[in-house]
């Protein structure tokens, strides 16, 4: 599934990285605990989270994640978006809750890393 397809399915907004919309993702990790993402998200290229602080972007950077999806209407601030830009990580925001977001993407063929 491409980032563009995820954006459409989730009725999400591109906060950064529309030019990366055609990149493909296969595995996704979702968590609000960044240590869990670091422990188990190794082969995932998309991070779904309801946590909203700069360490989310840092965590994504360390794992070479290409797209962060913020759920429950969470809005990263300018500092976080600047960081995402600097690292070339696309950022989407959706109003859906975590479970719904994950379910919708699963239905469209995305899978967890393990």
């Amino acid at each position, binding site marked *: 599934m491409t980032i563009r397809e995820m954006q459409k399915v989730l009725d999400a907004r591109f906060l950064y990285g529309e030019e990366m919309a055609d990149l493909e993702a296969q595995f996704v990790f979702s968590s*609000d*605990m*960044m*240590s*869990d993402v*670091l*422990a188990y998200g*190794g082969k995932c290229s998309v991070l779904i989270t309801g*946590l909203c*602080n*700069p*360490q*989310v972007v*840092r*965590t994504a*950077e*360390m*794992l*070479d994640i290409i797209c962060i999806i913020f759920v429950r209407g969470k809005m990263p601030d300018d*500092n976080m978006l600047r960081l995402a830009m600097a*690292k070339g990580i696309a950022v989407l925001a959706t109003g859906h809750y975590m479970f719904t977001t994950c379910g919708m993407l699963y239905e469209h063929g995305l899978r967890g890393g393990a």
Partner: protein
Amino acid sequence: MGEVLNFRYTIDGDDFTRAGEASSSVKNKLKQLGLDSDVIRKVSIAMYEGEINMVIHADGGNITVSVTDSDITMVLSDTGPGIPDVEKAMQEGYSTARAEVRSLGFGAGMGLPNMKKYTDEMHIDTTIGKGTTITMKVHI
């Protein structure tokens, strides 16, 4: 390469927002050196967890990273409270982090186990009341 490259960082213990800048800088440098992306990811994750620990448990410290043809060595030293029971601290899920740290996405007690998991060698030298030095090595 042939020679040894050294990078040094001072980690500010008061600024959680900036935690990870040193790990990010190292990641960039290793990319520029053209190292294998799996090696870079392992180093980045291990160092980032260590850097976060320095900020949340030890009020900052110093990190030195050396790169040779055969491996990358990270030495993280702080003058924090030390770790009373290293064996316990190494267990998944063990954490003394405050609720405030947990609300920031850390403090799940996975940091030290992650550091061990992603490196080829790890050694913890710690003295209560004096500080902690963690040495980690990743083979290239």
